[in-house]
C-alpha cells in the first residue's frame, strides 16, 4: 500500500519537476547544458556507454518512421498552435502599447472609461490645453489636440460584412503631437472641408478606402485624399477635421477627448493633480500608454488564457502519443537492451539514452512547429473589435521569446513522454529480455 | 474407399522476382474418403505447397483438384473462403491460436461463420473440447496451457464445424515426445472413430507410423507416381 503510494508520488514528481525546471529555464542555459552533456558523453565511462546506446537507438529510427513521426508531428502541432495563438495576443498588445507613450496624456470626461463614451465641451478642452505642464511649440502654442472620435459602419474587404471603423477628427496640432505619423500617399486633408486621410491598416481591411474614392457619411459625401502610416493602433483610423466631423455627426462643437504632449514624463503627476484640483473640470486624465494598456487588457488576457488552455490539452494528447511511441520503441528493442545489460551496461546509460532519443525527437517537433508558426503567422494582419468598439488592425507578433517558450513546451513533453519508458527499459529483467531471442 | 480427393496433373509455379520456381510438377493423386495420409519429403520438396492446395489456401498454376465432387481449383477467392469454412479444418505447427481469446472462444471461431446462435455455438465448442480431452480447460487462455494442450485446442477448432477433411502441417513439430504422441493418437482416433479424412505433412517417420498410408514427395513429384490408395 505504502509502496503504491510512493510509486504514485514518484510518478507525479516525474511530471511536475521537469515542468517546474523548464518554466524557469533561461534560453542561454540550453546550449550550456548541451555542451556539458556532450562532454559527459565523450569523457566519462558511463557517458560513453550512454552515447553508444543512444546511437543504436537513433539508428533504428528510420525503421520506426511512423511512430517517430507521431512524436515529432504531435509536438509540432502543440507548439505551432500555441505560438500562433500567443502571437495573436502579443501582436494585439504590442500594437496598442506602441500607440501610447509616457509623455503624452489624454483627457476624457470623468467616468467615461473610453473616448467613445466621453463628451467634452470647448471650454474644458481649452482649460486642459493651457495647463502649465503642457509642452509649447516654437510659436508658443500648447501642443494639444482636441479630438472627436465617432464610429462609422463600413464593409470589410474580406467578408463583405459591415464592421465598425473609427473616424477621428483631429486638431491642428495633432501632427506635432504624433511625430511618428508619416503621410505615405496623397495629401493631408484641408481644414474645413469634408476630406479624410486613411490609416494604412484601415485601408487594407476595409473596402472602398482608396485615394480618390468617396464615402457617404450621414448623407454627406466625403472624399479620401491621402494615406498615413503611424505604426500603431492609429493605423486603423480615418482622420478628418474635428469641426467638420462634428457637424456631420451632429455633435456641434463638442469633442470626445483632448490629447496633450507634456514637457516630460515626470510632469504627468503634477498635470494630473492640477486638473483634479480645478473645480471647473470634470475629466479623467491618464498617460496615453496607460490608457491604451487598459483598453487592451481584457482581450490580451482572454487570448492568453485561450492559448494556454488549448496548449495544455494538446500537450496532454502529445504526451500520450510520445509515451505510446517510446514504450513501443523500448518493447521492440527489449532484446538489444537485455543483451547490452547482459554484457555489462548499467541502467543509467539505457535510461539516459531513451530519454535523449525522445528529447531529440521532441526538439525536432518543437522546431518544426515553431518554424511553421513563424513562417505562416508572423506579421499576418488581422483586425478585431478593439478600442471604441471599432476595428483595430494588428499584426501577429512571433517573438523570439514566444519561440523559446514553445520549444520549452516541446522539451517538457519530450521529458515526460520519455522518462517513464526509459525507466521501464532499465527495469526489464535481463533473462526475460534475452529469451526474446 | 472411394476417392474424396482427386488430383490430376497438378502444377504450382512461384515467381520470386524474375525467377520462376516450379514447386510441384504434374502431380497425380487420389485420396480415399476416411484415409489417414502422411506426406513426407525433404525440405523444399513441395509437400507444404501440396497441402495448401488441397486445403484451398492457394490455387494451382495448372491441373485440377476435385474434392467431394467439387473442382476447387476453379473457385475464386471469396468462394474458396466459403468452401474452406464448411469443408476443411486446419492444424498448424505453431498452433496459431488467438492469444487473447479463451480456449472456448478460439474453438468457436469457425462457428461464427455459420448461422448458429450464441448458445448453440458455445455448446458445440464445448463438445469439441471434450472430444480432445480438454473439457475442463475451456475458460483458459492459450498462455495458460502447455504446448500439447494448445495443439489439442487447435484440433478442436479444426473439427468443430464438422469438416470432411483435416489438413495438418507438421502438427507435432513443436511438441515434446509425450505431447506429440497424445496429439497423434487423437488424430488417429478422429480418423478411425469419426471417419475424418486426415492429411498430414511431417518430417518425422515415427509420426508417419500413426497414419494409414505414407507418400513421399521429392522436388515437386511423388516418388511413387499416381499412387492409388486401398482401404
Amino acid at each position, binding site marked *: 500500500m505504502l509502496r503504491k503510494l510512493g510509486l504514485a508520488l514518484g510518478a507525479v514528481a516525474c511530471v511536475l519537476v521537469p515542468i517546474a525546471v523548464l518554466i524557469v529555464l533561461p534560453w542561454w542555459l540550453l546550449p550550456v547544458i548541451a555542451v556539458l552533456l556532450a562532454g559527459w558523453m565523450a569523457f566519462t565511462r558511463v557517458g560513453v556507454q550512454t552515447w553508444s546506446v543512444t546511437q543504436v537507438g537513433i539508428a533504428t529510427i528510420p525503421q520506426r518512421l511512423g511512430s517517430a513521426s*507521431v512524436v515529432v508531428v504531435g509536438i509540432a502541432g502543440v507548439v505551432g*498552435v500555441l505560438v500562433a495563438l500567443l502571437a495573436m495576443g502579443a501582436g494585439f498588445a504590442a500594437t496598442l502599447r506602441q500607440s501610447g507613450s509616457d509623455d503624452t496624456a489624454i483627457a476624457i470626461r470623468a467616468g467615461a472609461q473610453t473616448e467613445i463614451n466621453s463628451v467634452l465641451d470647448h471650454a474644458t478642452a481649452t482649460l486642459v490645453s493651457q495647463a502649465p505642464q503642457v509642452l509649447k511649440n516654437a510659436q508658443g502654442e500648447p501642443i494639444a489636440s482636441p479630438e472627436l472620435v465617432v464610429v462609422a459602419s463600413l464593409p470589410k474587404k474580406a467578408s463583405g460584412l459591415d464592421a465598425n471603423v473609427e473616424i477621428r477628427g483631429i486638431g491642428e496640432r495633432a501632427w506635432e503631437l504624433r511625430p511618428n505619423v508619416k503621410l505615405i500617399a496623397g495629401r493631408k486633408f484641408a481644414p474645413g472641408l469634408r476630406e479624410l486621410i486613411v490609416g494604412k491598416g484601415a485601408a487594407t481591411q476595409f473596402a472602398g478606402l482608396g485615394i480618390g474614392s468617396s464615402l457617404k457619411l450621414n*448623407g454627406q459625401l466625403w472624399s479620401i485624399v491621402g494615406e498615413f502610416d503611424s505604426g500603431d493602433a492609429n493605423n486603423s483610423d480615418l482622420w478628418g477635421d474635428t469641426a467638420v466631423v462634428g457637424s456631420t*455627426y451632429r455633435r456641434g462643437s463638442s469633442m470626445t477627448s483632448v490629447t496633450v504632449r507634456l514637457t516630460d514624463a515626470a510632469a504627468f503627476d503634477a498635470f494630473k493633480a492640477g486638473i483634479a484640483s480645478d473645480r471647473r473640470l*470634470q475629466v479623467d486624465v491618464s498617460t496615453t500608454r496607460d490608457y491604451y494598456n487598459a483598453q487592451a487588457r481584457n482581450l490580451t488576457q482572454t487570448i492568453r488564457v485561450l492559448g494556454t488552455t488549448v496548449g495544455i*490539452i494538446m500537450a496532454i494528447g*502529445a504526451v*500520450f502519443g510520445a509515451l505510446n511511441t517510446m514504450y513501443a520503441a523500448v518493447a521492440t528493442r527489449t532484446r538489444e537492451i537485455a543483451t547490452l545489460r547482459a554484457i555489462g551496461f548499467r541502467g543509467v546509460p539505457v535510461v539516459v539514452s531513451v530519454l535523449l532519443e525522445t528529447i531529440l525527437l521532441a526538439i525536432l517537433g518543437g522546431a518544426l512547429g515553431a518554424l511553421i508558426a513563424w513562417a505562416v503567422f508572423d506579421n499576418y494582419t488581422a483586425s478585431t*473589435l478593439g478600442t471604441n468598439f471599432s476595428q483595430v488592425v494588428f499584426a501577429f507578433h512571433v517573438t523570439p521569446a514566444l519561440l523559446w517558450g514553445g520549444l520549452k513546451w516541446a522539451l517538457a513533453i519530450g521529458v515526460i513522454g520519455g522518462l517513464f519508458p526509459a525507466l521501464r527499459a532499465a527495469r526489464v529483467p535481463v533473462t526475460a529480455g534475452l529469451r526474446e531471442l | 474407399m472411394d476417392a474424396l480427393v482427386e488430383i490430376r496433373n497438378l502444377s504450382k509455379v512461384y515467381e520470386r522476382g524474375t525467377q520462376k520456381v516450379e514447386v510441384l510438377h504434374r502431380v497425380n493423386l487420389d485420396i480415399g474418403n476416411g484415409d489417414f495420409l502422411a506426406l513426407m519429403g525433404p525440405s523444399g520438396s513441395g509437400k507444404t505447397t501440396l497441402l495448401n492446395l488441397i486445403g484451398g489456401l492457394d490455387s494451382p498454376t495448372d491441373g485440377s483438384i476435385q474434392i467431394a465432387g467439387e473442382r476447387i481449383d476453379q473457385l475464386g477467392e471469396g468462394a474458396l473462403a466459403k468452401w474452406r469454412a464448411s469443408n476443411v479444418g486446419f492444424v498448424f505447427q505453431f498452433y496459431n491460436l488467438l492469444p487473447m481469446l479463451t480456449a472456448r472462444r478460439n474453438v468457436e471461431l469457425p462457428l461464427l*461463420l455459420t448461422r448458429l446462435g450464441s448458445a448453440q455455438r458455445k455448446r458445440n465448442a464445448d463438445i469439441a473440447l471434450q472430444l480432445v480431452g480438454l473439457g475442463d480447460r475451456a475458460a483458459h487462455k492459450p498462455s495458460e496451457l502447455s504446448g500439447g494442450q494448445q495443439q489439442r485446442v487447435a484440433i478442436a477448432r479444426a473439427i468443430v464445424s464438422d469438416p470432411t477433411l483435416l489438413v495438418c502441417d507438421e502438427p507435432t513439430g513443436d511438441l515434446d515426445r509425450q505431447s506429440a504422441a497424445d496429439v497423434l493418437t487423437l488424430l488417429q482416433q478422429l480418423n478411425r472413430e469419426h471417419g475424418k479424412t486426415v492429411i498430414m505433412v511431417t518430417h518425422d517417420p515415427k509420426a508417419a507410423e500413426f497414419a494409414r498410408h505414407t507418400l513421399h514427395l521429392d522436388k515437386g513429384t511423388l516418388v511413387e507416381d499416381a499412387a492409388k490408395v486401398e482401404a
Partner: protein
Amino acid sequence: MKYLHLVLAALVRRKTRTLFTLFSVLAAFLLFGLLDSVRTFFDQAGSGVAGVDRLITISRVSFTLSLPKSLLQRIQATPGVAEVTYANWFGGIYQDPKNFFANQAVAENFFDLYPERILPAEQRRAFHDTRTGAVVGQSLVEKFHWKIGDKIPLQATIFPQKGGSNTWTFDLVGIYRMADPKTRAQENALFFNWDYFDEARTFGNGNVGWYVTKVRDRNQANRVAQAIDALSENSDHETKTQTEQAFAASFVSQFADIGLIVGAIMGAVFFTLVLLTGNTMAQAVRERIPEIAVLKTIGFTNRSVLGLVLSESAALLVLGSVLGLVSASIVVGSLRTAFGTGIPMQEIGGGIWLRGVLLAVLIGLLVGALPALRGMRLRIVDALAGR
C-alpha cells in the same frame, strides 16, 4: 453483434497501448467539445425563439448615432409591423467598472415585445407608475443581493444628469426572469423608464438609440426591414434594419472569425490525431498478421477481415470521443457554474455530441482503412510461412 468480442479482444490485447491511444483521443475530443461549445455560443448569440420576429433599427452611419423619436409613428404605420418600441443604451456603472452589466432606458411597451422576459403584472404596473423605477433580471438581483424597494445608483459614463451630477438613482420595482433557462445570461440587465431618461439627460433629447419592431409574419421579416429603411432614405438619419439575430451576429463577426480560428485549431489537432491513431492501428495490424491469416484459413472472407479491422479502429475512436465529450461537458458545466453566465460557452448538447461522434467514426474509418486493406489483401500462404 457476434463479432464484438473479437473486436474488443483485439483492443485489449495491448492494454497500455490502447489506453494511451485512448487518452490522446480523449484529449483531442475534449478540446473539440470546448471549442465547439464556444463556437456554438457565438453562432447562436442573440437567437431565441422570439429572435427572428423582431427587427432592430439603428442608424446606418454608426450605431453611436441616435434616431429621431418621430420615426416611431412612421414605423408603426408600415405594413407588416405589429408593434414598435424603442430604447437607449445608457452604459452606467454600478460601483466599479468590473461589475459591468447592460443597462438601457426603454419605452413603456418594451416588455410587450420581449415576452420571454417574464415580469409579474403588478411589477409591470409599478414600473409604469414609478418615474425612477427600474426592472432588473433575477441573476443580477442575486449577484448584488438586491431586493424590491432598494435604491440603485448608477454612475453615468455617457450621459450626465441635468444639474451636473453623474449619479442616476433608480428604485428597484420589478424583477424579471427568462422563460428559457438556457438564456439566463440575458438576466444580467437593468431597464429603466425612457421618459425619465429623456427628461433628465443633458443632450440628445428627443432621440432614441434604436427601435425594436415586431413583425406580424416572420417570413416577411426582410421585406418589412427594407420598408422601414425606405422611410429614412436620403435623410440625415438613414437607418439600417435587420433581424435581432443578424444584429447580434454582426457584432460577433466583428470580434473575430470565431469559426475560422476554431476550425484551424481543430484542423491541427485532428491532423495529429489521425497520424497518432493511424500509427497505432498500423502497429496493431502488423502484429496480428499471423492471426489474420488463421482467420482467413478458417474461412473468414476478405470483407469480414476488412470489417473487423475497421470496427476496431472505429471503436477506439468512438470510445475516446465519448470520454472526451463527457469530460468537456463536465468542464463546461463547472465553468458555467463558477463564472456565472458571463462565460461564452454553450452547454454541450445534442448538436455537439452528434458532430463529435460522427467525426470520431469518420476518423476511425479513415485511420483503419490502410491497415484494413493490408489485412484484407494478405496472402494466407505467405503470412503463414512468415514472409
